[in-house]
C-alpha cells in the first residue's frame, strides 16, 4: 500500500511519498494513482503516439495503413455478405462498416490488455510512475486508431449518400462510455495477465468467438425468436450505443440501461481489484 501526499512536480513543492506494507483495499492509493496518471498526460499522449508510429515507421502511408486495410476489409466483406444474406448493399455495408470500426477498438482493448503491464516491464522496474499512465497510453492510442479508421465511415456516407442527421452526435457519449469500459477492462486484464501468463491466450480465443456471436457481420433482426443472444451480450449493447446514432437512429433505452449497468459493475469490480492488487504489479511483471 502506498500513500502519496502532494506528489506534485513543481519546483517549490516537495513531493512526498509514503509506501507501506500490508494487505487490504487501498482505495485512496488507487484514486491518487488514477488522478496522478491524468496529470501526466503529456507523457502518455507522446508514448501512445510513438506506439502507433513505431509500427508504420518509414512506410509511405504511415498509420493510414490501418485505414487502408480496414477499408479493403469493409468493402470485401460488405459486398460478399450483402450477397449471402440477400440484403441491399446500401443498407448492409454502412452497418458492417460502423460495426467493424467499433468492434476493432473494443477487441483491441481486450487483446492488447494482456501486454499492458508485461510489455512495460522496463519502465515499471526502473521508475515509479502511476500505473494508470499505461492504461491511458493504451486507451489514447486506440482512440487515435479509431480516428484514422473513421475516414472510411465518411467515405461510406458519401458513396451511399446517407446523412444520419443530428442524432449522430449521440455517438460521442456512447464512444466515451466504450472508452471508459475499455480502459477499465484493459487494466483488469493487464493485471491478471501479469500474474497469470495464460490469460492473454485465453482472451484471444474468447474474443474470436464473441466476434461471431455479436451482431456485426449479421443484423440482429436475423435472430427472430433468439433475441436473447443479442440481449444478453454486453458487447452488443456497447456497440449499439455508437452504431445506431451513426446510422441515423436512436439507440434503444434497453441498450442504454444495459450499458450503464455494465459500466457500474465494471467500475466497481475493477476499482476494487486495482485497490487491492495495485501494489503487487511491480512484483508480478
Amino acid at each position: 500500500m502506498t500513500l502519496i501526499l502532494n506528489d506534485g512536480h513543481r519546483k517549490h513543492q516537495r513531493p512526498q511519498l509514503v509506501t507501506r506494507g500490508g494487505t487490504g483495499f487501498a482505495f485512496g492509493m488507487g484514486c491518487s494513482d488514477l488522478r496522478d496518471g491524468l496529470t501526466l498526460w503529456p507523457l502518455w499522449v507522446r508514448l501512445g503516439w510513438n506506439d502507433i508510429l513505431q509500427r508504420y515507421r518509414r512506410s509511405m502511408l504511415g498509420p493510414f495503413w490501418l485505414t487502408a486495410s480496414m477499408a479493403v476489409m469493409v468493402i470485401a466483406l460488405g459486398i460478399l455478405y450483402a450477397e449471402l444474406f440477400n440484403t441491399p448493399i446500401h443498407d448492409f455495408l454502412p452497418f458492417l462498416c460502423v460495426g467493424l470500426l467499433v468492434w476493432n477498438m473494443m477487441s483491441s482493448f481486450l487483446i492488447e490488455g494482456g501486454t499492458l503491464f508485461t510489455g512495460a516491464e522496463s519502465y515499471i522496474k526502473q521508475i515509479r510512475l502511476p500505473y494508470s499512465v499505461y492504461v491511458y497510453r493504451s486507451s489514447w492510442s486506440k482512440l487515435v486508431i479509431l480516428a484514422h479508421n473513421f475516414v472510411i465511415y465518411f467515405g461510406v456516407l458519401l458513396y451511399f449518400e446517407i446523412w444520419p442527421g443530428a442524432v449522430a452526435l449521440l455517438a460521442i457519449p456512447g464512444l466515451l462510455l466504450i472508452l471508459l469500459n475499455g480502459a477499465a477492462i484493459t487494466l483488469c486484464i493487464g493485471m491478471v495477465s501479469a500474474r497469470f501468463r495464460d490469460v492473454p491466450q485465453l482472451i484471444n480465443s474468447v474474443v474470436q468467438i464473441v466476434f461471431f456471436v455479436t451482431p456485426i457481420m449479421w443484423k440482429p433482426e436475423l435472430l427472430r425468436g433468439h433475441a436473447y443472444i443479442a440481449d444478453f451480450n454486453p458487447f452488443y449493447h456497447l456497440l449499439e450505443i455508437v452504431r445506431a446514432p451513426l446510422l441515423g437512429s436512436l439507440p434503444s433505452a434497453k441498450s442504454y440501461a444495459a450499458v450503464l449497468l455494465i459500466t457500474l459493475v465494471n467500475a466497481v469490480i475493477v476499482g476494487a481489484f486495482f485497490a487491492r492488487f495495485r501494489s503487487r504489479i511491480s512484483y508480478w511483471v
Partner: protein
Amino acid sequence: MTLHSINSAGQTELSLEGVSVSFPIYHGGSRSLKKSLLFRSSGGQLASDASHRITVEALRNVSLHFRTGDRVALIGTNGAGKTTLLRTMAGIYEPVSGVVSCSGRISPMFDISLGIDGEINGYDNIRLRGLILGLTAREIEERMADIVDFTELGDYLDIPVRTYSSGMMTRLTFAVATCFAPDILLMDEWIVAGDAGFLAKAQHRIEAFVKQAGILILASHSSDLCRQWCNKAIWMERGEVKQFGEIDSVLDAYTKEISATAS
C-alpha cells in the same frame, strides 16, 4: 489507513521502518491459471501446497533513516539486496510490511537509457525522457539549450537515435539524466562512460549533480568510489542491514570479512 504526515519544514528526508520485501517465485507452472484453478478444485492436500509458495526474502526488517547531506554507500556481495533496497526506496516495490516515507523529488538512476526510442530523433528523445523523469514540458524546454550544448551532438539531434554510436547515445542519455537537480539521488553503480574528452566533462557534471542532491545513495562494488563520494555506508547481507555507520569503519570491516572468506 492513516495519513502519515511527514515534516513540512522542507527538509529532504528518507526513512524506512521495519521494511520487508519478499518475492514469490513464479516459475513456469506455478504461475499459470491452470495450476491455480486445479489447486482450488482438487482437495486439501494440493491446496496447502499452493499456499506454501516459495518466496525469496529480499529485504528483512530494514530500518534506516537519512537526512539532508547524507552520502551513503551501499555495499554487500551479489544478491545481498542492494538493488531491491534501492528500488524500494524509489517506490518501485512497495514493501510487504513496514513503511517507506520520503520527502523530496527522487531521481532513480538505475538505467539511464530507459525510454529511449530508437526511431525518433534526439530532440524528441530528450523531451520524452524528461517527461518520464517527471519534468513538465516547460521545464524541459528551459533546459533544452543546456542539454543540447552538453551533448555536443549538434545536427545529429535531428536524426533518429538508432543511427547513433553507443558513445553518442551515452552523451544524450547522460545529459538528460543529469539535467535537473533531484532531492534524492539513487544510483546503482557509477554511470560514467564515453571517450576521454567526454569523460572529463561528465565527471565534472556529475560532481555538480551529486553535490546538489540532498541525499545520495550509491550502490557500488568499488571502495574507491565509495570513499570518494560518501560519508556513510550500509553493509547489506542476506537482505538485512549488517552495519550502518561512518564510511571508513564499515568499509574496513567489510573488506576484512571479504578477504577472510576469500582466503
